[in-house]
């Protein structure tokens, strides 16, 4: 359709749209295992998109970023989550998401808001991937929506990690990635966070016999 956009930019935009689509898919996915797979796929696409930016712009540290993304978000974290789900025996834990269409509609509205917020900023950016800043913000907002609508602990955490994916996309699209030391620190925090949550899940299940956080509604101001 528009021949004046270079192939690399088109590839980046394609990756970003796939990430956005996956965010919507996660919003509607009821099975925990499938949800984790979707998250792993999102990590993979994120890695690909970072790689395309790296190859096009010859930014060396982006290769490391892409490698880190692949190792952490596409492999290690999904593996940890899979193990957790198996150990906790919640594999067939299907959530009853009653209002998927409504959630989707809210999601669409969020995407529009995100695009509007990002518009003035992406104009200022000179990066090849600037068009994806709106998508990145949309992914963050959709992940946030997912955290609000889910009632089980693991999907909430997947939502939290998906939010981090969106932030990473924002960082690569607006600025070609954060300084390496910061990116390493963030990766470390995410990893430690997931491990702590793993410990935490067992504590929750031992106390409540379930990972349904609807049981946790005792603390109120009254």
């Amino acid at each position, binding site marked *: 359709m528009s021949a004046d956009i270079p192939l690399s930019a088109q590839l980046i935009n394609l990756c970003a749209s796939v990430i956005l689509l996956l965010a919507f898919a996660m919003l509607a996915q009821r099975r925990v295992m499938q949800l984790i797979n979707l998250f792993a796929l999102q990590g993979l696409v994120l890695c690909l998109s970072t790689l395309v930016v790296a190859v096009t712009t010859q930014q060396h540290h982006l290769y490391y970023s892409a490698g880190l993304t692949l190792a952490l978000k596409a492999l290690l974290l999904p593996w940890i989550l899979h193990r957790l789900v198996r150990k906790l025996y919640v594999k067939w834990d299907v959530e009853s998401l009653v209002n998927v269409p409504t959630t989707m509609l809210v999601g669409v509205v969020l995407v529009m808001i995100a695009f509007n917020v990002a518009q003035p*900023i992406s104009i200022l950016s000179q990066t090849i991937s600037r068009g994806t800043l709106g998508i990145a913000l949309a992914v*963050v907002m959709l992940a946030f929506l997912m955290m609000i609508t889910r009632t089980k602990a693991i999907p909430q955490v997947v939502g939290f990690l998906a939010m981090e994916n969106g932030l990473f996309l924002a960082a690569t699209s607006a600025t070609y990635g954060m300084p390496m030391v910061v990116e390493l620190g*963030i990766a470390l925090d995410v990893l430690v966070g997931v491990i702590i949550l793993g410990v935490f899940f067992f504590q929750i299940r031992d106390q409540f016999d379930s990972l349904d956080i609807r049981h*946790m509604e005792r*603390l109120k*101001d009254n």
Partner: protein
Amino acid sequence: MEFDLFLVLLAIPLVSGALLTVVGEREWAPNLNIIASGGTFLAAALLTADIIANGPRFALGEQFFIDSMNVFFVALTAFVGFTTSIFSGPYMRNEREHGRLSAPRLRLYKSMFQLFMFTMLVALTTNNMGILWVAMEAATLTTVLLVSLYRTPASLEAAWKYFILCGVGIAQALFGTILLYFAAERVLGETGNSLLWTHLVDVKGSLEPAIMALSFIFLLVGYGTKVGLAPLHNWLPDAHAEGPTPVSAVLSGLLLNVALYAVLRSKVLADGAIGGDFAGNLMMGFGLLTLLMAAFFLGRQKDIKRMFAYSSIEHMGLITFAFGMGGAVANFAGLLHMTMHSLTKSAIFFAVGHATQKTGTQLIADIRGLIRINPVIGWGLMLGTLAILGMPPFGVFASEFMILTHAMKYYPWATPILLLALGVAFAQIFGKVQPMVFGDTHAKRLPHAPAITPVFLHLLIVLMLGLWIPPYLTRWFEEAARMLG
């Protein structure tokens, strides 16, 4: 020599945290915890003296930066960490004898306590706005398992809420940091130094205002979640009420300060880039909203630790408002109030911790006649409460008075709101604490005598600062206040 001192400051909590994990729960482990915290405090005090004498300096290249503003927070953090470790010795032994905590949990507590101190010291001294974010998130992670230390349903719920809400908040702060880097990169270029605060502050005037405005909003809401600013404050009362009391003391006394420090650093940049009162007005708005909300929720609390947690939210609102007004006087008052609040609130939590152990409950209605059970704890709680409510001659009065008079002069419309909130808070808290201290009692003996010294040490300092602030401290506050603009 100076270089070493700073490394020692960071190394003590990190190494002792690891050491406490390895050695496990021994008879002397609490003492090791105290010695390590004492060492940290000593290093912080020496570092402070050095900074006062020789001015600001870098460490580890330009990655860490210590100036008169953050060294003040470092000293405060190390001091309260030290007294909390003294308090937690007998407190945690009592908890163990009551069968509420086992040896592995105590090990977890001590090692996480030290790592928590480490993350806060890194957050305070780092020069890199990205590392500041990383350290803030790490501070959350180290305390999640401390909040759920008792493994009761309520404490797990509190810890989950804490993790998710602060996680969401801190994710927004990360977006703010990304935007900040984006703005910085356009001026400073694509080097690893573009997120260094000292570099940013040099070029703050030429940072793109539109990006900086959006960035500051995200940073304020994000770090504000950890400060306890409304409307994302919900995690705070739960985490304070359900976690062990020493954790409540450091959360209230230190973590909130460190989060506010992150907001202040961002505000300096935003003010420089945007100009005018944009950042200040936002902070005043959030501050007033938080203050009002907390004052009216105070009265509905039945749990004593929850009530004082809301009191912390109230004071954080007041401090945010003070920094929002800006200017040398208001910044001075804000810094003074932060110090007073840290010292007083941790003293109150120490006293509350002993009181709840004595009476075996956290319910306000069930705690009665502390003055007869143990006069020292009773008076400690009473004096602490009077101090936090801003009664003269305690130091909180001085800082609240400064904030109020400054508001009357420059923002008269805010004065009735401030007075209303402070009045409501006074009536609610005093009305609840009075029967707890005086009244009929059912006593209980504790196997380990409580550590009373920290309570009165803190209150004594607050009293002293209310009557007389040493000149070097005034200079130091003034310098820090000037840096905030």
